[in-house]
């Protein structure tokens, strides 16, 4: 009598496609995503229908619900040089270690007098600190936010010029520098007046064009 030979089936699964898929996803996420950094302030931006992307090279002023301004520049070299110039202006010496730490930080909202202390805090302690915001003194000589903006811009322009000469020396004619843009990221519930205050500081330096950061709103 002929017997049917049942195929011996293994109870195991072939995992290879699953590994393929998992690594494909890992690669995708590694390449597309940028690392999320811990901001010292939570800003809930209002929604709009604009779908323009934020440029890479920006000077960013965040404004929280209470209207306190925070300052940030993306380029680390520019950050360090700006800090040096601010230090010279306010007679505060920053050590190399402090400068290095500062370059790796994100936005900050402390006056110059507390900045040194703020830089040397470890990340956990820094997250707990309530930042008072960068002081805007529209009448006095020491308008700190104004100084940050001004020095940041000067340092950035120097860098751009240096890059351009370098490109020229190397004979690269097609070199195009991405100009620094000024972005304002304000909380939707913040008073418009506090945003206007920051804009007025920019206006003093003849900067009139801004990128207002919003959430994309579907409707």
């Amino acid at each position, binding site marked *: 009598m002929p017997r049917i030979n049942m195929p*011996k089936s*293994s*109870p*195991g*699964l072939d*995992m*290879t496609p*699953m*590994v393929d898929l*998992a*690594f494909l*996803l*890992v690669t995708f*996420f*590694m390449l*597309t*995503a*940028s*690392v*999320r950094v811990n901001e010292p302030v939570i800003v809930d*931006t*209002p*929604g*709009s*229908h*604009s*779908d*323009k*992307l*934020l440029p890479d090279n920006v000077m960013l002023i965040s*404004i929280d619900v209470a209207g306190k301004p925070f300052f940030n520049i993306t380029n680390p070299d520019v950050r360090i040089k700006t800090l040096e110039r601010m230090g010279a202006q306010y007679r505060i010496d920053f050590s190399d270690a402090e400068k290095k730490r500062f370059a790796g930080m994100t936005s900050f909202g402390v006056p110059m007098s507390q900045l040194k202390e703020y830089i040397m805090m470890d990340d956990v302690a820094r997250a707990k600190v309530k930042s008072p915001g960068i002081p805007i003194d529209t009448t006095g000589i020491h308008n700190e936010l104004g100084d940050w903006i001004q020095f940041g811009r000067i340092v950035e322009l120097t860098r751009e010029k240096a890059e351009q000469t370098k490109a020229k020396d190397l004979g690269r004619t097609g070199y195009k520098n991405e100009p620094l843009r000024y*972005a304002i*990221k*304000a*909380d*939707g*519930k*913040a*008073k*418009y*007046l*506090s*945003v*206007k205050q920051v*804009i007025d500081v920019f*206006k003093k330096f*003849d900067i*009139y*064009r*801004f*990128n*207002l*950061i*919003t*959430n*994309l709103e579907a409707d």
Partner: protein
Amino acid sequence: MADVNTGDGGGHGKHDKKRAKKASTRIDMTPMVDLAFLLLTFFVLTSTFSKPKTMEINYPADPKDKKDLQKVNNALTFIMTKDDNLYYYEGEFYPKNNKDKKPLTELIKTDYSKDGLRKLLLDRNKPTRDKVLELTEKVKNHEIADTTFKRMAVAEKGKKEALTVLIKSDDKATYKNMIDIVDELNITMVGKYAVVDMMQSELDLVNAANDANPAK
């Protein structure tokens, strides 16, 4: 776990004694899968996906001569105030007892909804919007180039008779109010708009209007 070696089970024929024990060439993939998914989870959780979106806006330089501001042909002035209230008036502002003997400007109440602000702007900016849409149609039909379209659209929006919108705010309006207006202006293709400071006479009028409609 994933692969149980079943290669040498059963079937003891007479040649079996001479054959070497069959070793599996497979590797257990499970730890690798674990690792891959662990990494995947890590990247999903620590990364921000989209870059933030932005809205570009140009502020006017502070005018050297205050008188220049007033001369606008086809203007709407919006005044933002507390509790998300929004008022507007058309054309020039006439304070009480003005020189031209015009009646005091009346503020009209509107809101940030689709039926309020957007309807009003669509209505008032219809000629410009129609022309820009016409141009968009031409681009779709490949009649004009993309760059030509951009240039022509800007020119159309900047025409002298196009609608001009001024946005003013008192000290109680929120930033969201301002973004909402600018967003609606972009949607309704109003090219000429500016966020400017308010005059004292306007502020008085807004305060009076606010007092007349007390907050809920």
